[in-house]
């Protein structure tokens, strides 16, 4: 169909067209990157780098010591504003805490009990089956306390954001000391290049030595960010460790069955493929 382009003029024309397209595209991308207007790269946030999480990989579980430290960070820092609705105290048992530790956590709290005989509301100490409490009664209270911004529930936040763990970690550690020149922020908001638009209501919350880890790990900003991100990834995917184990089993079984199927097919077809058919014409 196509003949090879052989004339020197045509070759020059094609080279020129390719170079023009490449340079034009590069120029447009560069133009796009130096402003933060609507529908530009800056509006969608800086892409986080890919970090080497210890649970990356097909057969890698979470680092449970990190989950435990991350829960401590969540409880001491994040829980002041962010809820974690879908995690119950019982979920921590055997993952990051023992049953008695989890019971000690929830017994410190009060939950609604059934009303008494006169219908008056009552309170009771928490049980393992209770869910983690929200810092605010409802969305309106949360917005009123945060200048109109709603701190999102963190149960599924790792699944709910592009870049997942890398994004959460980059966001937590990515606050510069002051916004870059020329950036105008609405009152009460902070600059973070990883947050789409760059203007985020949450300020920097993690500072070195903010918490004291019980296993003696130095509580640097990045260590706390890594631990709380691992904890939030566990909260979003509590089935993670079992899922990968089942995946391994499924891979072994299905690939074995595949090999068996190939063997059976060859076994059954061998005589058919090897046979020779001889035709003896009838003798007249």
């Amino acid at each position, binding site marked *: 169909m196509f003949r090879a382009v052989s004339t020197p003029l045509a070759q020059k024309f094609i080279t020129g067209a390719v170079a023009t397209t490449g340079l034009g595209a590069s120029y447009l991308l560069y133009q796009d990157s130096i402003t933060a207007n609507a529908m530009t790269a800056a509006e969608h946030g800086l892409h986080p780098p890919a970090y080497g999480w210890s649970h990356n990989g097909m057969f890698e579980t979470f680092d449970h010591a990190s989950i*435990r430290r991350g829960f401590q960070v969540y409880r001491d820092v994040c829980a002041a504003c962010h809820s974690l609705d879908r995690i119950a105290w019982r979920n921590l048992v055997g993952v990051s805490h023992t049953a008695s530790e989890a019971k000690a956590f929830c017994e410190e709290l009060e939950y609604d009990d059934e009303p008494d005989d006169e219908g008056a509301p009552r309170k009771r100490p928490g049980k393992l089956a209770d869910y983690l409490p929200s810092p605010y009664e409802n969305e309106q209270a949360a917005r009123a306390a945060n200048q109109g911004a709603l701190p999102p529930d963190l149960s599924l936040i790792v699944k709910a954001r592009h870049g997942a763990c890398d994004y959460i970690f980059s966001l937590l550690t990515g606050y510069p000391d002051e916004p870059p020149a020329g950036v105008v922020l609405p009152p009460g908001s902070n600059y973070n290049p990883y947050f789409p638009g760059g203007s985020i209501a949450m300020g920097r919350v993690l500072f070195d030595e903010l918490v004291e880890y019980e296993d003696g790990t130095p509580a640097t900003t990045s260590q706390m960010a890594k631990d709380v991100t691992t904890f939030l990834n566990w909260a979003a995917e509590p089935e993670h460790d079992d899922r990968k184990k089942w995946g391994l*089993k499924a891979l072994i079984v299905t690939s074995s069955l595949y090999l068996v199927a190939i063997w059976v097919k060859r076994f059954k077809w061998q005589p058919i493929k090897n046979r020779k058919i001889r035709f003896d014409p009838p003798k007249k």
Partner: protein
Amino acid sequence: MSFIASLFQRNSIYVATIFGGAFAFQGFFDVAVTKWYENHNKGKLWHDVKGKFLDGGDEDEDDE
């Protein structure tokens, strides 16, 4: 008649062999995979790091 061939003689024995074989294989396979998986992730699992956080005493814990 060999032992293998005898399994195919009656349908009841044939089906029972498949069910029993699946049951036995599952137990063996699950133990083997779990053993490899926990060895592969040694040091990250809860029962590996538990001792680092608990100062003994809590050993009779009934957690899963």
